[in-house]
C-alpha cells in the first residue's frame, strides 16, 4: 500500500478516528494491528520475515536483560563476600554470555537482511569471475526484498545493542516490542528510531490534541506536495537522461544530476514529512531526518543534515564499535609506531571511516554503484578534512571572508559535488557513470538546452512551469524554516491567511500532482532500501 494511494488515505482516516475513539490504554494495540495490516499488503512472506526479526530480537534482548538483572542481584547479594577481582571475573563471565546472545541475534537479524538483499549481488559477482574462466553460471535466487527491511532491521539491531550496553532494560511485552519494530509510518523508509525515544511514546497513550492533529495533517499535506507535485513530475526527465546515456551526455549529465537531486530530496523528505505528520496526528513525535541539507557548506555538514537518523545509527553502532575494537587498537599502535604519531593516529580513524562508508553504500543497495557511491563520499570527506589547513591558509592569504557570496559558493559547490556522487544511483553501472562524468567535462553542448531539446525529456512546458513553481515554494519554505517552524509562524497569522495557505496547498496537490492514469505510479525511492 503506497503512501500516496487512495487506499492508504482511507486507511489513515479510519485509523485516526478509531485511535481517538478507543480507550487510550488500547491505542498501542490498535497501532500494532494497523502496522501489521499495513505491512500485510506488501505480502504475507514479508510479514513472516519481520515476525522472525521481532521474535529473535525480543528473545535475545530478554536473555541479555535477564543476565543483566541476575548480575545486579548477584553482585548486590555478594557485595561484601567477593573481592574486586572476583567481581570483575564474574562481570566478564556474564558479559561473555551476553555477547554470545548478542552475536547470535545479530547474525540472525542481519543474516536475513544479507541473504535477501545481497545473495543475488554475490552471485552476479561470482558469475562475472566464472565467465572469465568460462566455467558456467550460478542461477539467481527468486527472492524479492521485503519492504523496509533495511530500516526495521537496523532499528531492531540498535535496540539489541542498546540493551546489551545496558542503556535501558528490554521491553517485556512482545506485542509492544513488535509495535516498536513495525510502527507503520516509519516502516517503509525510516527515520530509524531509538527505543528509548519512540517506545515510551508508542505505549503511553495520547488524548486528542487539536494542535497535534492540525499540525500533523499540515505536515502530511506538505509531504504529498513534495512527492506528487515535484518528485513524481520530474521523474520522467531523470529516467530519460540516465537510462539513455548514449544520447544524453555533456550538459545533460549535469542536468540529470540536478534533476535527480531535486527528485530524491522531494521524494525522500516528502515521504518523511508524511511519516512524521502521521505520527504527529497520533500524538507521537518521530525524530527529524533532514535539516535543510542543500544549505550545507561542506560534505561533512551535508551528511549531518541529510538522512540524520541513518548517519547517527552508523556512528553509534558501526563507527564507534569499530574504532574502539581490539583490531583497531592494534592497527593504531602499529601505525603510530611505523608512521609516526601525527599520521599514525589518523590511520584507524580513516580506516573506520572507510568501513562505515562502505557499509553505508552497500546498505543503500546491493550493487557496485552504491559501494562506489559510499567510497566516493568517504573520499570527499577525508580529502576535505585533510585540506582544512590549506583552506585556512588560503583564506587568510587571500583575505577570503565568510560573506554571503562566499557562503553561496560553498553551498553551490557542496550541492554539485553531492549531486555528482548521487547520480551513481541512477546510471546502469559504475563504468557508464564515469563515462558520463568524462562527457560532462569533454562534451560542450550547452546550446542544446535552448533548442527545444528540453521538451524531449518526457516533460512538457507546463511540467517545467509546475516544477519551477514547486521548487520555488520548497526553497521558500526552507528559507523561512531557518528561523523556526513555519507551521508555528503560520498559526500566529490571521485565519484567512492560514485558510488560503492550506487550501492552496491542498488544491495545488490535487491539480498539479502527477498521479492517476497517464502518470507512472512511483514508489517512494527509499522504499526499496
Amino acid at each position: 500500500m503506497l503512501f500516496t494511494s487512495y487506499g492508504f488515505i482511507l486507511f489513515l482516516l479510519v485509523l485516526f478516528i478509531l485511535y481517538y475513539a478507543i480507550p487510550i490504554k488500547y491505542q498501542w494495540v490498535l497501532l500494532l494491528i494497523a502496522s501489521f495490516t499495513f505491512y500485510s499488503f506488501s505480502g504475507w512472506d514479508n510479514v513472516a520475515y519481520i515476525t522472525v526479526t521481532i521474535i529473535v530480537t525480543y528473545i535475545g534482548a530478554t536473555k541479555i536483560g535477564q543476565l543483566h538483572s541476575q548480575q545486579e542481584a548477584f553482585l548486590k547479594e555478594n557485595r561484601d563476600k567477593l573481592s574486586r577481582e572476583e567481581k570483575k571475573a564474574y562481570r566478564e563471565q556474564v558479559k561473555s554470555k551476553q555477547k554470545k546472545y548478542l552475536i547470535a541475534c545479530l547474525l540472525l537479524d542481519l543474516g536475513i537482511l544479507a541473504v535477501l538483499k545481497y545473495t543475488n549481488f554475490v552471485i552476479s559477482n561470482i558469475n562475472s569471475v566464472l565467465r572469465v574462466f568460462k566455467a558456467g553460471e550460478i542461477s539467481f535466487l527468486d527472492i524479492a526484498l521485503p519492504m523496509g527491511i533495511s530500516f526495521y532491521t537496523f532499528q531492531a539491531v540498535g535496540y539489541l545493542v542498546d540493551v546489551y550496553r545496558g542503556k535501558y532494560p528490554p521491553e517485556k511485552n512482545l506485542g509492544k516490542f513488535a509495535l516498536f519494530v513495525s510502527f507503520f509510518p516509519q516502516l517503509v523508509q525510516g527515520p530509524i528510531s531509538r527505543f528509548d525515544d519512540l517506545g515510551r511514546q508508542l505505549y503511553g497513550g495520547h488524548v486528542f490534541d487539536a494542535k497535534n492533529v492540525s499540525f500533523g495533517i499540515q505536515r502530511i499535506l506538505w509531504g504529498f506536495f513534495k512527492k506528487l507535485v515535484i518528485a513524481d513530475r520530474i521523474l520522467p526527465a531523470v529516467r530519460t537522461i540516465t537510462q539513455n546515456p548514449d544520447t544524453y551526455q555533456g550538459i545533460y549529465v549535469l542536468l540529470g544530476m540536478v534533476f535527480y537531486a531535486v527528485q530524491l530530496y522531494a521524494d525522500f523528505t516528502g515521504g518523511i514529512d508524511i511519516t512524521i505528520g502521521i505520527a504527529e496526528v497520533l500524538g507521537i513525535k518521530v525524530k527529524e531526518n533532514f535539516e535543510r541539507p542543500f544549505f550545507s557548506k561542506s560534505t561533512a555538514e551535508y551528511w549531518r543534515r541529510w538522512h540524520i537518523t541513518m548517519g547517527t545509527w552508523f556512528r553509534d553502532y558501526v563507527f564507534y564499535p569499530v574504532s574502539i575494537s581490539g583490531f583497531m587498537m592494534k592497527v593504531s599502535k602499529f601505525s603510530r609506531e611505523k608512521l609516526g604519531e601525527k599520521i599514525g593516529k589518523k590511520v584507524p580513524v580513516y580506516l573506520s571511516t572507510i568501513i562505515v562508508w562502505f557499509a553505508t553504500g552497500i546498505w543503500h543497495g546491493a550493487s557496485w554503484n552504491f559501494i562506489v557511491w559510499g567510497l566516493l563520499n568517504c573520499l570527499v570527506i577525508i580529502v576535505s578534512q585533510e585540506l582544512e589547513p590549506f583552506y585556512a591558509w588560503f583564506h587568510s592569504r587571500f583575505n577570503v571572508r565568510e560573506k554571503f557570496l562566499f557562503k553561496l559558493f560553498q553551498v553551490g559547490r557542496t550541492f554539485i559535488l553531492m549531486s555528482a556522487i548521487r547520480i551513481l544511483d541512477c546510471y546502469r553501472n559504475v563504468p557508464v557513470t564515469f563515462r558520463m562524468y568524462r562527457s560532462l567535462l569533454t562534451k560542450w553542448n550547452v546550446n542544446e538546452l535552448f533548442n527545444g531539446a528540453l521538451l524531449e525529456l518526457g516533460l512538457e512546458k507546463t511540467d517545467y512551469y509546475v516544477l519551477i513553481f514547486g521548487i520555488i515554494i520548497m526553497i521558500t519554505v526552507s528559507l523561512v524554516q531557518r528561523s523556526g517552524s513555519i507551521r508555528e509562524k503560520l498559526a500566529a497569522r490571521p485565519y484567512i491567511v492560514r485558510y488560503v495557505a492550506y487550501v492552496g496547498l491542498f488544491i495545488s496537490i490535487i491539480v498539479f500532482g502527477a498521479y492517476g492514469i497517464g502518470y507512472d505510479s512511483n514508489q517512494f525511492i527509499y522504499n526499496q532500501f
Partner: protein
Amino acid sequence: MRTGKKIAKWVVSALVTIVLLGLLQNLLMPKYMTKILEGALISEYYREKNKEHDVIFIGDCEVYENFSPVTLWQEYGITSFIRGSAQQLIWHSYYLLEETLAYEKPKVVVFNVLSMKYDKPQKEAYNRMALDGMPLSLSKLKAIKASMMEDEQFITYLFPILRYHSRWSELSTEDFKYLFRKDNVTHNGYLMRVDVKPVTSIPQPKKLANYRFSDTCYEYLDKMTKLCKENGIELVLIKAPTLYPHWYDEWDQQIEEYARKNDLLYINFLKHVDEIGIDYQTDTYDAGLHLNLSGAEKLSRYFGKILQEQFDLPDRRNDEELSEVWEAKCERYNREMEEQYAELEEFGYLKAFSAGRDDN
C-alpha cells in the same frame, strides 16, 4: 473564541472549500461540446424536461448513430430517446436502463446486441463517456464497479477532479464557456451526421476460437430481460445494419435462440437491408461502420412501423403539448441538418467531427 463561533467558522470554511473544489472540477472536466461529442451524450437525458418516452434505446454507436427519434416522431408520432454512448458495454446498458426506469417507464426498450461480444471493459475512455454523465445514484455506483479497468480507481468516478486534474494545462475557452451549462449535441440521443463515405471494401472477418458469448454478458442480458418483464416493458433485441465490425452467424443464432426462449423480438437489420432501402454508397458516413442521416432516417422509418404494429404504440402527434415540444425538436433538427449540409458544401467535411483538421 466561543465554541459556536468556532464551529461556524469551520463550517463556512468547509463550504467555501467544497464550492471551490466543485467549481474547479466543473472547469477541469472535459465538456465534449466540440470534436469528441460522444462524451456529451449520456448527460443530455437528464436535461430533458419531458421524460415520458414510448421507446428507450440503449447501446453503443449502432444506436446513437443509426436511429433518429425525430423521424420516429414525424412518421409515427412515437416519442423516443437514445441512451447510447461510445462502445457502451452491456453492463453500462443495463445500469443505464435501471437508472432510466427511476425516471420513467417506457413501453419498449431497444437494445443493440453488438456489445455481447465484449466480456471485459475495453478502454477507460469509453467507461468515462458512459459513466461521467450519470448523476450519483445506486445504479451509477454499481455501473462503476462493473466497468472499471484494472488501473482505474473507484473514487475518481465519485470525484472526477482526481481523474481530470491534469487538464489544467489544456483548458480552452470552451471549458469556461460551458462551466455552468451544456448545449445539446444530439437530437434525443441521435448524433447527426450528413456526410457520406461509401463502402468500398469490408475487412474480411477473422475466424474466432470461440463464438459463444460469455456468461457475464448473458448474465446482464438476463438481468435486462428480467428488469423489463418486472416493469411490464417490451424488450426488443436488435442488430443494426452496419457492416463492420462483423456480426457472425454463430452470434446471430445465439441471440435468436435467446430471444425465442425468452419470448423477445429480435431483429437483425442486416437481413433486411433491401427492405429498409439502405444503399451503402450513400447511407453511411464512414464506409459501413455507421449510417449517416439518410441511412438513419430510412432505418427509423422501417423500425417505427414495426414498433407501431407489434407493440401498438399510439400516435401522439395529436397531443398538443407534446407536439409543441417535438416541433421545437424538429426545428432544431432541420436547422442542424441544413447547417451540416452548408458546412459540407463549404469545407468538404464536418468541422465538429474532424478533430485536428482545422489546423491543416
